[in-house]
């Protein structure tokens, strides 16, 4: 049962910009208007309870899509159905049932204590008293908010604020949670804590999550499905695991030799990079094993240290962007 259905969605903006080649004071004032297609015919569906990673480079149209799903923007073409409602026509009804965390934008009152923000949200969302108390208690425990509930938001650290934002977005038991860069700027520990919380949330409450991020760690840890968008179009929609396997066969052996030398020639691997005494050897699972390669390298040069690099989703995604992945975007 699809909770979000997007069909041929489009958004076009008229953008005014400086005329090319124009200089000086007059040039600064001379503008032209161009039509930019930020979202150019996107279709996908999300099932209830799914956690979907929504990724793409800057300016690909990710945020514009999310804004149409939440009713912030009215689409230029195509249709959006969120819980069987059109968000642009029924914005308020949709808003009651979704939670939103936009990493760069706060929904908290920056000059009031965190607890006061929650209290105001309780009234804005008309959350029943008991439900509200239970949720605040539960999130305070899960996200460890107790120490700073009475602190004005402006004095919170980024990690504390993000935990506050998550709670604020969840107090009214939303069915869908939209997350835009929820871990941006956080340290490793804080990231891990937020990921763990989100995974738990999905299991416990069955919340559907649409996650926009630049951090592939978020996707790997949380999402089974990934939507990749570029130039306003979906270029991949499918399993995170499948795409990892497709490229996952390729690993990289990084060796530190005693002294710099020419690229080492070993069967089953090719040197992709040399930096002084350090060399990168890429190999495929079917052609060689790590052990046999290490032995082969050690036979040719004195080996000081080594590491094996698993393929990062960043690389895979970059390859999809660059068109290396010659397969058509499959629709789920």
């Amino acid at each position, binding site marked *: 049962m699809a909770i979000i259905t997007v069909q041929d969605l489009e958004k076009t903006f008229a953008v005014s910009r400086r005329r090319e080649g124009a200089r000086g004071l007059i040039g600064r004032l001379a503008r032209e208007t161009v039509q930019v297609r930020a979202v150019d015919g996107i279709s996908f569906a999300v099932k209830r309870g799914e956690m979907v990673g929504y990724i793409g480079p800057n300016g690909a149209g990710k945020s514009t899509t999310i*804004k149409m799903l939440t009713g912030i923007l009215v689409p230029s073409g195509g249709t959006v159905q969120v819980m069987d409602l059109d968000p642009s026509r029924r914005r308020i009804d949709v808003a009651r049932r979704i939670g939103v965390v936009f990493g760069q*934008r706060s929904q908290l009152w920056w000059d009031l204590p965190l607890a*006061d923000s929650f209290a105001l949200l309780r009234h*804005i969302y008309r959350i029943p008293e008991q439900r509200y108390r239970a949720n605040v208690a539960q999130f305070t425990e899960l996200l460890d908010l107790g120490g700073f509930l009475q602190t004005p938001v402006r004095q919170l650290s980024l990690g504390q604020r993000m935990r506050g934002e998550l709670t604020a977005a969840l107090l009214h038991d939303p069915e869908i949670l939209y997350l835009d860069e929820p871990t941006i700027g956080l340290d490793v520990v804080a990231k891990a804590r937020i990921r763990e919380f989100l995974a738990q949330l999905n299991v416990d409450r069955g919340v559907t999550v649409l996650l926009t991020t630049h951090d592939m760690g978020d996707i790997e840890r949380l999402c089974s499905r990934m939507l990749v968008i570029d130039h306003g179009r979906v270029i991949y929609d499918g399993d995170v695991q499948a795409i990892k396997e497709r490229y996952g066969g390729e690993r990289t052996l990084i060796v530190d030799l005693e002294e710099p030398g020419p690229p080492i020639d070993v069967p089953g691997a090719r040197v992709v990079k040399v930096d002084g005494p350090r060399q990168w050897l890429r190999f495929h699972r079917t052609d060689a094993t790590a052990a046999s390669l290490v032995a082969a390298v050690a036979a040719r040069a004195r080996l000081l240290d080594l590491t094996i690099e698993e393929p990062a989703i960043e690389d895979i995604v970059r390859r999809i962007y660059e068109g290396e992945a010659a397969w058509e975007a499959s629709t789920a």
Partner: protein
Amino acid sequence: MADLPAIYLRLISARIRAQLQYRLSFLLDVLGSFFLTIIDFLAIIVIFYHLPALAGWTLEEVAFLYGTSYVIFKLVDMLIGHLDGLGDQVQAGQFDMIMVRPLGALFQVVTLDFGMRQLGAVLQGLIIFGLALWRVDIDWNTGRVLLLAQMPFSGALIFASVWVAGHTIIFWITRGREAINAFTYGGNMFTTYPIQIYGAWLRRLLAFIIPLAFVNYLPALYILDKPNPLGVPDALRFASPLVAVIAAIVAWRLWNFGVRHYRSTGS
């Protein structure tokens, strides 16, 4: 819907709590608002220092216009003047957060702040209005009392409509804020003088297309028993409530039209 007033009070009282964190500054702000606005009345006094009547209106009668205009306008300013910040909210993406909450966008913008400092300006308006009422000779009857009593309501509705309708241009021209000042703060100035002094096209625009004449001038013609030099139907002197309701409907429609054209920032 029924609980909107309660939500309003909660949000506003949170704003007031935050403002009172800086008590001295708040006090200076109220004083500043008192003095900054009373200058406009001092300017009127300077003008009347050189002549007995402006277009047939005495200082006391102009003070009546001034007082009503300022009390009503500054009350509206206190409640919704922070619409001035809409352009900045759109610029900073804060309006996105408004759009994902289950309340009307206008309701939320209006509850983002509360212009308590305008108390100074309202107080100064009340003082001038009180003095005017004391010095002018009004032949009180039921009609005049009723007409005066409705002025704050229809006047506030008209000013508020100007404010809301004007700010819809922000959804197209994010940095267009200053143009709206011509109609909001400009409307305040416009209604402090008897409007027959203005040139025909300016009067047509600000007094009738934007119905600022109905805030205080037209009712004042009847209350102060002044002649009607503009040649508009006499009945219009009593039309303020009706005009105010129409203005509010137009402003509300424009606002909703504007929100649907909100572009957000970034991509």
